[in-house]
């Protein structure tokens, strides 16, 4: 290929090559700029509050005191809940879709893809007007009183329908199609002969999936989970509408709170001075979290790859 380049090394070709190269190199530079910009913008906040900002719980615009813990804890809690609901559901859905007759499975997968295409603001609006009232009137009383979960500390009764559980459910519904689409492909990529060997020694369908397909596709399944994790971490609108938006560390599944993304969206308008720097600092934390997810995913996948002894 390089040889051919030398033969027709015209000016046009050189310009073309430089133009494409520049566009490509711009991507890592853009990423770098993100980090620089957010760090720069957040400097005043770090100067003011120090690293204690990350574990501070105050949010007092009048006194100008801000802490990130409620937002960080809220982000982790909603993400955890979303994954808790979505991973098992996506796993079994993907199993079903991979096993369904091609046409039927194809149609259902397309339907799930459309679910993923619905803008998050629609989820948010639906959560606000439809799901939150149902949570308040039916689901939360059912969980805490009928099932008696209210006596367990974190499951207490204290809810107007806006809070972490509602946000977690909406997020789960949003990320389910992403996770399940990737998982379905992973299952479909298992060599048929491997599946036949598993079934051939007397595995049930479930045993073959659990013991053979999951191991074979471990990397891909993990990748699917990380895709969902990444989306849940940074999702703004679906959460913003139903989280309640108060800067408090979660005390119960039903309590109102906030997430990093929701805090950013909620306070941008009033942002000035140190609050603006605080928002940048929160943005930086979110950026760091999603970077960590990506890097960890890649590193872990590499590890799984080599331990499977593939050539």
């Amino acid at each position, binding site marked *: 290929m390089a040889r051919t380049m030398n033969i027709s090394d015209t000016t046009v070709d050189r310009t*073309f090559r430089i133009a494409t190269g520049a566009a490509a190199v711009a991507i890592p530079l853009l990423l770098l700029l993100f980090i620089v910009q957010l760090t720069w913008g957040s400097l005043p906040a770090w100067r003011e509050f120090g690293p204690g900002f990350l574990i501070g719980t105050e949010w007092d615009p009048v006194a100008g005191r801000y802490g990130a813990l409620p937002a960080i804890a809220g982000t982790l809690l909603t993400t955890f809940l979303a994954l808790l609901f979505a991973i098992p559901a996506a796993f079994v859905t993907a199993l079903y879709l991979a096993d369904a007759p091609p046409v039927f499975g194809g149609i259902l997968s397309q339907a799930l893809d459309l679910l993923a295409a619905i803008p998050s603001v629609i989820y948010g609006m639906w959560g606000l007007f439809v799901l939150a009232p149902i949570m308040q009137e039916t689901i939360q009383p059912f969980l805490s009183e009928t099932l008696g979960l209210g006596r367990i500390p974190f499951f207490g009764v204290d809810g107007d329908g806006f809070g972490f559980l509602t946000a977690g459910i909406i997020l789960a519904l949003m990320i389910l199609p992403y996770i399940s689409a990737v998982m379905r492909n992973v299952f479909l990529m298992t060599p048929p002969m491997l599946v036949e060997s598993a079934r051939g020694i007397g595995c049930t369908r479930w045993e073959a999936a659990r013991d053979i397909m999951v191991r074979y596709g471990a990397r891909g399944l993990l990748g699917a989970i990380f895709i969902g994790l990444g989306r849940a971490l940074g999702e703004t609108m679906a959460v913003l509408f139903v989280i309640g938006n108060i800067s408090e560390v979660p005390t119960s599944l039903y309590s109102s709170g906030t997430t990093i993304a929701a805090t*950013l969206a909620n306070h941008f308008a009033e942002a000035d001075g140190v609050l603006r720097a605080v928002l940048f600092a929160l943005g930086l934390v979110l950026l760091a979290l999603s970077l960590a997810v990506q890097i960890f995913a890649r590193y872990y996948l590499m590890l799984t790859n080599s331990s499977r002894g593939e050539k």
Partner: protein
Amino acid sequence: MTMMNNNSISARRRGLFRRRLADRIVRLLSTAALVIAIAGMGWILWNVCARGISVLSWSFLTESTKPWGIPDSGIANAILGTLEITLGAALIGIPPALLGGIYLAEFGRGTRLAGIIRFATNVLMGMPSVVVGLFVYALMVVPLGGFSGVAGSLALAILMIPVVLSTTEEMLRMVPDTLRESALALGCSRTRATLAILCRSARSGLLTGILLAVARVSGETAPLLFTALWSDGWPRDYFTGPTANLPVLITEYSTNSPFAEQHAAGWGAALTVTVMVLLLNIGSRIIFKEKHHVR
């Protein structure tokens, strides 16, 4: 050999009943999860349609938004603004994304630099859109002293770039090397050969990627909160002033308004956005499918 000694182990069989029961239960759960997911989608779409249709009318789609209390309020300015912002995003984002994708597929194969670029692209793809909004806010809105439609376009463009770039690379890689070589052997310059391949073989794939990227960003809300913001007027000041758009309208009307009329208008806007996004999505799929049947 113990291997053959069937009697000693046949008494210690695992119960087939429990194994089969586990299989049945998982099967049931699979169906249940799928039904719940699809029903959830159906429920959402039903709500959007049922509540949205009731406010749809000619004037709703042709009149501008107006403060509460003034009759004949519509969402036309937001529709136009969304079109402007999305089109602007496509103009800003697609050219560099195409070029970058070409670089990765044609020039950068197997190099370390390409690895770095690919990694950065993946990271950018997983970047929360709200962070992108914050970034453009710091990059454009703060220095230029105000919100603008074009800042919104830039934010959406940044969200589109990694998607279009990686589809471009993928599509070009699917083109067999022999095609490349035969074009070069005919005496085509590298540029012409690449462009010819782009236009011919990879075209439908690229179009699919672009349409999907457009569909994805046209419903994005969070980045626009930081950039284009919101305005009741017609979107005349795309370069200098806040520009109306559907997603932020939905947000404003449903969270910042106590009025039922505005909630209803929000549902109408939600229906409009959903129809737009789903049409783009389905359209791109159809294009991709047709091409694949032809090949």
